[in-house]
């Protein structure tokens, strides 16, 4: 909401600087997003009149009269027409901060100067070249056209504060914040003797609880006076003609959307729901198909406006219009929001009706606009007004308890202070005691202030959040173990310690990932994705991990190890989300056993693990393994299948893993039990051998253990070269010291068994 300070001061007097006012409003809940200084810093920009336009592909070549000379300028705004007044900047011009004159050169056409868009003059951002009022003098400095040094507050109005979508509403808020009073506009209507004769029928009083209208006859459609144009321009609205400008002006002033019909083109007004199949062509030339839920304004035959959202073509005010039917209404906010979403139509009107307008403002704004149309359009207001309403709305009465207010805020306010604060906001005291205050809620806050707690908030924000104490409470709740958090943090610390970097990836992906990985496309799609790249939920971590690998490889980071703890998503009877751990290793030092070592190190923290061979399309058939933790299959790892690698254009092997954390964490045994330390010495014996291809490490261990029995405490593989292996066997008895002869005999026995059973060739 744009609030020109000069305009605001017509309703509330204050001496604060714009910055101080902005600070006060912000701290009372209405954030001032920006303070705009119009014309400040803008120099040598003048008003030009378009004399001729010529289309050249995506551009218009405009001939522009600057008063002193005529220039040719190229623009990409195709909406310009002959006769339009536009701001023209030249090389010597100064524009809003950070914007410079850009020249568009087109083959064969020389371009002088630039046509400015509103933000280039320090106004709100817009796609189109700014159009100045049609009576703006050619060659005049735009600062004069815009109103010199207009200062405008740009407010971010909260969704519950429909009452602040008007200058008067903001004036009321400023008055409350500054503890001051407001001055309402002085509306004096002069009606003729003839009475309003239009028939109005409201068929749906729930969607339209109040419908008012007046008729003004003999209106001359022409340009608005400068004082209206200036206010509209500063508020970001383009002046069109006096009647349209007045409806916009009153919309800004009161926050009440109005609609002006050409009274001669409307035989009667029926407010009803659209019939299935009905259509309407709106003012912006769209043909809309209506359905039966949508509220319309119709004449005796057809819809002439989508209620509260947009008028139709054919009944609008045109240059030859003489008699005006002016509508002011209260439409059901929910219905307006629904229709606006359904038709994808948003307008200044729909936004205001959607937040709810002021019940009393419906009448006040109608009179204000009728008065202005009569004054500025030399028309006559017919006697009386149409006012069809469900029932009169009365101010709601609400009680606020003193103790409850202090209980919620942590304050020590008294009844008198509460009455004072609410009084500043226009809540009138009905009755009060030490314990409780009853007030009536102004109709402008209808729908926003409905409960005691809403009053508590009003008290808090005007009292000042900064005046409320800062304390810290604790509650005596049962301590939780937060096991998932603890374990996943452990995982992250261990893996980072092992040299891997943690990544954070999107859980929503490109739907092409299953095809790249040779998987079935059983993902959950998003109905309204922002982009195709982020349109399905992943069923597996791998594609996210590979995306991160791919990014790094493309940026010449060839050696990397990464991991992530994240979720995958499946649809069964309901939606299932599973916490997973996944990662990848590639480049220098990366191989199957490097990754296996990391996984072993990780699982060693939680319990005992082993590995078994598996078949997976995701992995290299000769370098793939299943991970078994405490006898449960928890995941897999190995080299990424070379076919997939090729699809990603990875030049070196990438080793990947994925572990289901839900299964892993549930398999962790909670008890850790201490075993006594050995009391007697150990004896080590080494064995070196050549093995056949069919012999595995696991087979060797098994053979040694089988023969060694309880005498063998530990077996370590300490050297590997091609098919040569060297092991160190540790012998120990927990009850006595083993003799040299005993150890030698057992060791010989083991060597013999290795030779006969596995056919290894012992090395001396």
């Amino acid at each position, binding site marked *: 909401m744009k609030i020109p300070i000069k305009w605001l001061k017509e309703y509330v007097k204050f001496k604060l600087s714009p910055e101080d006012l902005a600070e006060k409003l912000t701290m009372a809940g209405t954030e001032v997003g920006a303070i705009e200084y119009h014309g400040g810093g803008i120099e040598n920009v003048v008003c030009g009149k378009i004399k001729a336009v010529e289309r050249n592909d995506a551009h218009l070549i405009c001939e522009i009269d600057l008063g002193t000379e005529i220039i040719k300028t190229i623009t990409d705004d195709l909406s310009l027409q002959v006769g339009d007044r536009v701001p023209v900047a030249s090389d010597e011009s100064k524009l809003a901060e950070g914007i410079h004159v850009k020249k568009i050169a087109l083959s064969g056409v020389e371009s002088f100067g630039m046509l400015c868009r509103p933000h280039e003059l320090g106004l709100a951002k817009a796609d189109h070249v700014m159009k100045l009022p049609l009576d703006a003098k050619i060659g005049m400095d735009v600062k004069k056209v815009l109103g010199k040094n207009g200062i405008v507050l740009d407010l971010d109005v909260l969704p519950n504060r429909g009452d602040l979508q008007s200058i008067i509403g903001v004036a009321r808020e400023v008055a409350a914040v500054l503890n001051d009073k407001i001055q309402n506009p002085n509306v004096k209507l002069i009606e003729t003797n003839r009475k309003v004769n239009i028939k109005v029928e409201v068929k749906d009083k729930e969607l339209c609880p109040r419908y008012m209208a007046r008729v003004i006859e003999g209106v001359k459609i022409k340009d608005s006076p400068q004082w209206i144009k200036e206010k509209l321009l500063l508020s970001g609205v383009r002046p069109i003609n006096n009647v349209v400008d007045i409806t916009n002006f009153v919309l800004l002033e009161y926050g009440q959307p109005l609609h002006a019909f050409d009274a001669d083109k409307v035989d009667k007004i029926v407010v009803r729901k659209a019939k299935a199949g009905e259509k309407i062509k709106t003012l912006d030339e769209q043909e809309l198909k209506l359905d039966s839920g949508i509220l319309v304004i119709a004449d005796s035959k057809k819809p002439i406006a989508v209620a509260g959202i947009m008028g139709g073509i054919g009944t609008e005010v045109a240059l030859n219009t003489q008699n005006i039917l002016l509508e002011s209404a209260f439409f059901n906010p929910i219905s307006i929001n629904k229709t606006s979403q359904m038709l994808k139509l948003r307008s200044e009107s729909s936004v205001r009706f959607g937040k709810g307008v002021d019940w009393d403002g419906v009448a006040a704004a109608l009179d204000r606009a009728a008065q202005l149309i009569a004054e500025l359009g030399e028309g006559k207001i017919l006697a009386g007004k149409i006012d069809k309403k469900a029932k009169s709305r009365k101010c709601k009465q609400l009680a606020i308890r003193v103790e409850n207010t202090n209980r919620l805020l942590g304050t020590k306010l008294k009844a008198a202070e509460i009455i004072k604060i609410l009084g500043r906001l226009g809540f009138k005291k009905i009755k009060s005691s030490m314990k409780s205050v009853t007030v009536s809620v102004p109709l402008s806050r209808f729908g926003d202030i409905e409960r005691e707690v809403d009053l508590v908030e009003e008290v808090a924000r005007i009292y000042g959040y900064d005046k409320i104490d800062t304390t810290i409470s604790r509650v005596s709740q049962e301590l939780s173990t937060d096991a998932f958090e603890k374990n996943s943090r452990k995982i992250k610390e261990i893996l980072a310690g092992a040299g891997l970097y*943690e990544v954070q990836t999107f*859980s929503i992906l490109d739907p092409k990932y299953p095809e790249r990985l040779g998987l079935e496309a059983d993902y959950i799609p998003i109905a309204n994705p922002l982009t195709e790249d982020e349109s399905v939920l992943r069923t597996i971590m791998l594609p996210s991990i590979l995306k991160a690998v791919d990014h790094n490889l493309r940026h010449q980071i060839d050696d990397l190890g990464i991991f992530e703890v994240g979720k995958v998503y499946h649809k069964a009877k309901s939606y299932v989300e599973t916490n997973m751990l996944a990662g990848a290793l590639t480049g220098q030092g990366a191989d199957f056993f490097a990754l296996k070592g990391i996984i072993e190190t990780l699982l060693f923290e939680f319990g005992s693990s082993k590995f078994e061979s598996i078949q997976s399309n995701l992995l290299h058939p000769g370098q793939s393994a299943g991970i078994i933790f405490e006898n449960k299959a928890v995941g897999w790892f190995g080299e990424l299948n070379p076919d997939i690698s090729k699809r990603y254009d990875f030049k070196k092997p990438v080793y990947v893993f994925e572990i289901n954390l839900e299964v892993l964490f549930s398999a962790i045994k909670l008890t850790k039990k201490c075993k006594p330390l050995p009391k007697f010495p150990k004896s080590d014996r080494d064995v070196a051998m050549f093995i056949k291809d069919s012999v595995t490490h696991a087979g060797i261990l098994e053979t040694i253990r089988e023969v060694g029995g309880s005498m063998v405490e530990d077996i370590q593989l300490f050297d590997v070269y091609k098919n040569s292996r060297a092991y160190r066997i540790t012998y120990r008895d927990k009850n006595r010291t083993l003799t040299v002869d005993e150890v030698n005999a057992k060791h010989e026995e083991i060597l013999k068994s290795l030779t006969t059973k596995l056919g290894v060739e012992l090395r001396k």
Partner: protein
Amino acid sequence: MVERIKAVEDEAISRLNEIKNLQELEAWRIRYLGKKGLLTELVKNLKNIPTEDRPHFGKNLNITKNKLENIIKEKRVTLESADKEKKIKSSAVDITMPGKGIKRGKLHPITQVMNEVVDIFLRLGFSIADGPDIETDYYNFEALNIPKHHASRDMWSTLYIEKDTLLRTHTSPVQIRVMEKKKPPLAIIAPGKVYRRDADVTHSTVFHQVEGFMVDKNITFADLKGTLTALLHAIFGKAKRVRFRPSYFPFTEPSAEVDVECVNCGGKGKLSNGESCRVCKETGWLEILGCGMIDPNVFKNLKYDPDKYSGYAFGMGIERIAMLKFGISDIRLFFENDLRFLKQF
């Protein structure tokens, strides 16, 4: 005979001067003082000498022996210390060479900030809870006092899976899920991923939030202010000013937006070179989180008596805090996972 002793002594001393290391010294010792050494041979020879000459001869022999033993002792000390020095010298290292190493990875900056926030609340006695990413319209909106077609729904641009099923737009549904199952007193934080249909340099379709709430008898807005001020001081430093200003959320009343003094310009709105601060858009303040007292309508859905219990709730975007803390200007950097980026934190 005495001459022979003298000759051995002279030879020994002259040879000793040429000795350069411990091995030569040992050879010298064996030659003169060893079991078969020259001096030892002379001692053995005593028995061939007339008895009356023996004392005189023996005395001379002893003097020479002691002399040589002392000399060798001294020489050994000199040689040993020279030897030690040489060894130390030869094993000196270039301390500027790189360490051998354990290559350590790092936690993602989002995780680092998330852990920091979570740890602060764990110390304040909060427990962790979580909820699903795929939520129902009921938990994400309706139970939080955001009815269908209400103007406030525009505050969240939502990604839908199907009708009434969506990707949660905030972590606030966890409030409802916890309060449905448990009774006060409660102090809960819920970290997690959230989704919005919105993307640019400061907005990401997927990002992280931490939700927190406390419900008991007599929990006040002052408690909310105290707790969040403590949090922000812990994250951004005690010297930073914090302000609470009125705002609107359908699920809290009163509601507040919390700002912290701009980390870029120190709250001045302008940089030291006079340029305007882009981080805070010249306001001197950074919007950090939204919060408020839980709305009685939320309690009513859960059958909590709002006259008996009160509570506060807050939600904050972790990426936003991390961006401000680390000076990151583009949110997309978090999710590209470029190692050159991740190594910096």
